[in-house]
């Protein structure tokens, strides 16, 4: 039993990233308000970013800014910088998508007068 608990605690970050992804997915499917769906999409995106950064972490490592002292660079002393770079692009894309999604929500409200999905669908079927 303590073996299983140590096993769970060793990869705690990954399980929490999966839980956050599932919270985001639930908000995107089950909520009826359009703004809640947009919030769920953003929670999903930041959970993915958390997962990637957890992959690049090293317990003995520090931030990936090198020192100028001219010694041999020990790779195990710096966190892996490649996931950081990829996730910078991901954050940029997520804020762009958020802005365009809010513009779409405002346009839908101007057309139909409501932001609830079931009311919009019933109005479209008439």
């Amino acid at each position: 039993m303590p073996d299983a608990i140590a096993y769970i605690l060793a990869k705690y970050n990954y399980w929490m990233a999966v839980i956050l992804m599932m919270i985001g997915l639930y908000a995107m499917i089950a909520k009826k308000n359009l703004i809640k769906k947009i919030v769920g999409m953003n929670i999903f995106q930041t959970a993915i970013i958390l997962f990637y950064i957890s992959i690049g972490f090293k317990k003995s490592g520090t931030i990936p800014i090198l020192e100028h002292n001219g010694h041999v660079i020990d790779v195990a002393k710096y966190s892996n910088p490649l996931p950081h770079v990829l996730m910078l692009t991901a954050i940029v894309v997520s804020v762009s998508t958020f802005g365009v999604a809010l513009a779409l929500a405002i346009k839908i409200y101007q057309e139909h007068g409501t932001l609830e999905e079931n009311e919009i669908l019933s109005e479209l079927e008439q």
Partner: protein
Amino acid sequence: MGWHIDIIVLSFVVIIAIAAIEVKDLLATAVLFGAYSFMMCLLWSIMGAVDVAFTEASVGAGVSTVFFIAAIFHTKRRSQD
């Protein structure tokens, strides 16, 4: 000490995320969403990703919250579920 803070902040993040999608007032969702962004920024700077944390702090807890409140201002503030 470094990774003990990690476990506490991760539990906070999950609680804030569940609260952000369950409240009915959309202004409260905006504020909780800004708090969620700030907690994520803290988490990434614990893990040594300072560039990503800087970007998330300026984008998520700054500009993204302003866009959200500007959008709620022109649509309904109360959601039905």
